[in-house]
């Protein structure tokens, strides 16, 4: 500790702040790269089985080799390759879900906040119920009805996922409704639609970005839980949650099958949360209670 009192602790706080920005940003960049260039980065095919290569431990354990850095599973598939390809599922599901939920949530939130009245009240009651309903049950129900698939997962997470957006955006729209520039737009005769699109929307983009970033982690966690339960992406596509499930009964002998995909989930979610926190402090510190 070289710090002399306040100066030292300030410097430490600054370094910590930068670390909580750069490391998460790097992890997420890695995730995107892994997802896009998976076929070039992965040393093996994620689905090709090699029964002669079953249950090889990771390279740092006795019996492991650098041919399979993170070992292989019960079917001889390379864990590292599967983790790299698994990034595709996590990334595509979370991007699509966030696109859908933020659009629906923003539209409903602006309408509820700006127009208010009876429509607003009804919308907010629906939002409250949606906020309090466990998404995982809806997802299981949908998986039974429609069968587990990529579409089912996206639909299942989106069906309630718009609610936090609607809640937050409504609050913002409610506040902006009283702003001077909105009152002026009303006086010169702008239609409510024009006011909502041209005046309210541009002013809620910052909180929208913050909450979208903060929800990346939650979406990835939910997707992983669904894949773990078998209500997610069907087994031939490698996904992190399903990989943890594959290894669960072998945890005493081949712990690496479950360990690495779980670490990947944790790392990505942690990074998403940290980046979201950082963005919130930068763009919209008022939202700190989120």
């Amino acid at each position, binding site marked *: 500790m070289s710090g002399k009192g306040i100066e030292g602790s300030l410097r430490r706080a600054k370094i910590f702040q930068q670390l909580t920005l750069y490391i998460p940003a790097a992890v997420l960049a890695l995730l995107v790269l892994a997802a896009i260039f998976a076929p070039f980065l992965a040393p093996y095919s994620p689905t090709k089985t090699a029964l002669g290569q079953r249950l090889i431990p990771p390279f740092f354990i006795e019996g492991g080799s650098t041919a399979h850095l993170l070992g292989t599973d019960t079917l001889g598939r390379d864990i590292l390759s599967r983790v790299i390809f698994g990034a595709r599922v996590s990334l595509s599901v979370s991007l699509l879900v966030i696109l859908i939920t933020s659009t629906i949530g923003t539209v409903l939130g602006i309408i509820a906040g700006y127009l208010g009245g009876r429509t607003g009240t009804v919308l907010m009651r629906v939002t409250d119920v949606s*906020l309090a309903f*466990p998404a995982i049950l809806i997802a299981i129900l949908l998986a039974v009805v429609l069968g587990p698939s990529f579409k089912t997962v996206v639909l299942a997470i989106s069906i309630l996922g718009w609610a936090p957006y609607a809640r937050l955006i409504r609050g913002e729209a409610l506040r902006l409704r009283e702003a001077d520039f909105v009152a002026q737009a009303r006086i010169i005769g702008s239609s409510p639609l024009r006011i909502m699109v041209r005046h309210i929307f541009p002013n809620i983009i910052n909180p929208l970005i913050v909450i979208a970033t903060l929800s990346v982690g939650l979406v990835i966690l939910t997707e992983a839980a669904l894949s773990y339960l078998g209500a997610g992406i069907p087994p031939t596509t490698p996904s992190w949650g399903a990989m943890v499930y594959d290894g*669960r009964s072998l945890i005493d002998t081949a712990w690496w099958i479950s*360990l690495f995909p779980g670490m990947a*989930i944790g790392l990505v979610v942690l990074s998403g949360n940290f980046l979201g926190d950082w963005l919130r402090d930068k763009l919209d510190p008022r939202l700190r209670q989120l």
Partner: protein
Amino acid sequence: MGRFIVIRLLQTVVALIGISLLIFVLARLSGDPTMLMRTPTTTEAEIVNIKQQLGLDKSQPEQYVIFVKNLFRGDLGESIIKRRPVTDMIGEALPNSLRLGITSFAVSMLLALLLGVLAATRRDTFLDNGVKFLAVLGQALPGFWVAILAIFVFSVYWHLLPTSGTGGPAHYVLPVGTLSFFLLPGMMRLVRSSMLDVLDSEYIKLARIKGLPERVVIWKHALRNALIAPLTTAGIIFANIITGAVILENVFNWPGVGRLSWEALVARDFPVVQGVTLLVAVLVLLVNLLVDILYAYIDPQIRYQQT
């Protein structure tokens, strides 16, 4: 207050109708249930007979009315796989889920109060940072994964606890421990921030000026008022308990409602999943109704705003 309760009750009924309609539509989307019952030797006459028995030959609105009537009689239909009433199956599983959920809620609530208050009163100390770190991990790590690692460490490696199933108190340690670990962060953050707000207020300064011991100021005067804000999120905490239970009951082979719905998912047993979802929907709505009423009782401003 009376008016407020009536309005809220009506809204709850409307929400229930909405959810039952949604589930009914989904049930029809899942296709013809007789397809699942068909065996190679089934004749067309038998299918027609079954359809009549199940009321599938009637129009959709009629079917919905029958569906709702049966609901009121507590009849959720029959499991396609087990051939048993869904109500019985849920009745057997629910107490196990309640035991797991209530114990975890109690444990995490106590810890959240203790750690939240300590973190708020000792800001930026080692303890505060430790609590924050724990919260960050609890919000980012996947529950099923932490549970599997916990089984590996405590059951397989150290042989301290049973790996799964129900039984003595030892069987509770891992499921309750992991579920609490995930409930804790949200609750702890709420208690901490709410405590920080309250500690800033005038009446806390007055209590201190009066010369009350710090222990009394914090644990009695401040905490009591700091608890009102977290109360509004009880509904969300309840949803989190259910989400956690569905996942962790599977990892720990805990014979509760979550495990039941997972088994039904794997077997494509729609009536069971439908029953569980309806039950949870009713519970969620009731919890939120209670919270709303309780909150309006504590804070009269809410009552006037909403009526």
